[in-house]
């Protein structure tokens, strides 16, 4: 095998699970690559130290008020020009502001070039709820054809493929999701931090299990005979890594999960051709998708930045804030179970769910936020 390129060695330091297994295996066996890796690591650590800067205690509310005061004053509202070196993508973006039609035509004429350009079509920054019922869930399953068959133990195999009604799905991950023995081990595998809440409601119990899931990359290649707006598009979705910490105790001689805390890197999707709107229209126009579900999804607005959270029938949802971040609280009809989901600024999605009422679950979530 060829030696591991410097760029891959560099990413191995920060996001090892994103690097193919083959590169890691090669490095373990190759003295030259290990030596290069040491140089890369030394440079990275030095630059990280050099670029470290004091972080201010920010008050976004005060900053917003200050900005409004500036905007109200024509003199203060002036700001230095922000000069951005142009890249093809930004050039398209800049031009589209004033000459959208021309750009659109240009893209159509240069379809081959456009198809080779990766566009981020999904990088959610906040969560929003979508009411769903069992019919909606059935429709989503049927959209995927026969569904993705789980491997033994209910987990997906690390790699695999599945024929879909409109293309092919392939997925790969750096390994199986698995139970680990400690938070430290989970953090080492996922590069995610976990700070256990200092106080827990009575009856929650102790940590009973910890799971780590490496990042999964799924690619959907939409077939050439699909809708012209999306045909031939390759959609790559990365999800995770993720860490799940489960709390519980014993009830009637059997173990009972009382609380789960999931932390995961937000999913991100890139497309080689179709835009978010084109993909959305394509999926929502598939046969069998209920009209009400379509309406609810349309209400979410720009799907690029929204992580939809399904709310089952009978559950109530409301907007909450966890620290500085907007989130959603979902409470079961009985009030005996609830969940909070939010995304923090660092691109991490947090889910806190358990057999707790809304007050207790929010109390736990706010210790994490």
């Amino acid at each position, binding site marked *: 095998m060829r030696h591991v*390129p*410097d*760029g891959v*060695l*560099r*990413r191995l330091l*920060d*996001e090892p699970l*994103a690097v193919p297994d083959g590169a890691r295996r090669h490095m373990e066996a190759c003295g030259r690559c290990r030596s290069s890796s040491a140089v*890369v690591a030394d*440079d990275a650590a030095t*630059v*990280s130290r*050099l*670029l*470290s*800067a*004091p*972080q*201010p*205690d*920010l008050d*976004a509310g005060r*900053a*917003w008020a*200050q*900005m*409004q005061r*500036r*905007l109200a004053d024509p003199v203060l509202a*002036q*700001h*230095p*020009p*922000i*000069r*951005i*070196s142009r*890249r093809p*993508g*930004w050039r398209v*973006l*800049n031009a589209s502001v004033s000459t959208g039609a021309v750009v659109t035509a240009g893209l159509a004429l240069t379809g081959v070039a456009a198809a080779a350009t*990766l566009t*981020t079509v999904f*990088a959610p*920054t906040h969560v929003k709820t979508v009411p769903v019922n069992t019919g909606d869930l059935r429709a989503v399953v049927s959209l995927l054809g026969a569904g993705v068959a789980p491997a033994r133990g209910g987990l997906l195999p690390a790699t695999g493929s599945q024929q879909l009604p409109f293309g092919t799905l392939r997925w790969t991950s750096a390994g199986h999701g698995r139970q680990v023995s400690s938070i430290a081990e989970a953090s080492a595998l996922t590069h995610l931090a976990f700070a256990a809440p200092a106080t827990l409601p009575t009856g929650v119990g102790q940590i009973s299990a910890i799971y780590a899931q490496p990042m999964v990359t799924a690619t959907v290649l939409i077939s050439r005979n699909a809708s012209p707006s999306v045909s031939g598009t390759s959609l790559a979705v*990365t999800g995770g890594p993720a860490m799940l910490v489960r709390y519980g105790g014993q009830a009637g001689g059997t173990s009972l999960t009382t609380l789960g805390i999931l932390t995961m*890197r937000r999913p*991100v999707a*890139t497309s080689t051709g179709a*835009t978010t709107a084109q993909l959305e229209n394509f999926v929502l126009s598939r046969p069998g998708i209920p009209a009400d579900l379509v309406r609810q999804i349309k209400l979410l*607005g*720009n799907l690029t*930045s929204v992580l939809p959270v399904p709310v089952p029938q009978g559950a109530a949802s409301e907007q909450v804030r966890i620290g*500085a*971040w*907007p989130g959603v609280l979902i409470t079961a009809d009985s009030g005996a179970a609830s969940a909070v989901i939010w995304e923090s*600024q660092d*691109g991490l999605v947090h889910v806190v769910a358990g057999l707790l009422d809304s007050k207790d679950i929010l109390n736990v979530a706010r210790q994490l936020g």
Partner: protein
Amino acid sequence: MEASFVTSPTSMTPDTSFSAFERFFREHYPAVVRIACGVVGDPQAAQDVAQDVFIAALRRFPEPDASQHASAWVRVAAAHAGLNAIRGERRRGHRQQQCGIEVASAGPEEAMLDQESRAEVRQALRRLPRRSAVVLVLRHSGLSYAEVAEAMNVNVGHVGTMLRRAESALRKELNDATRP
């Protein structure tokens, strides 16, 4: 080639956009300040840069939820605006002394950098090719590779290569600058 976005007071966005933009502002303000701080090295100056970035963004993306690019734009604009701010600037030490903002206590690594060496780093950063400086600042402010790729409109597979070259170039710049 560069594009400039100069303020025009007459192009003020209607008040009706403010609620959506305020949400966008609150969501992205910390990241933008963090990125700017990585360049200018001064929390107060970073917040000034962030204000400029968001005023420019308000005019560019009055309805940020409707744009797929607004969040990436403010991040990359923060890096560029910070780099513009340090161009030729030699008043940082004075400004830091006057900075009245609360600053989180410095960590051990940070304490190793005195103000003089910070100024050298900023100058070296300024001398790098702009894209190299931007990738350094974005990554070392905590953005993931996917987020850096989105902000810079490059393939995520290229980020490691760009970052590696930029880190090597920054060290070389600093070594050259300190060589007698």
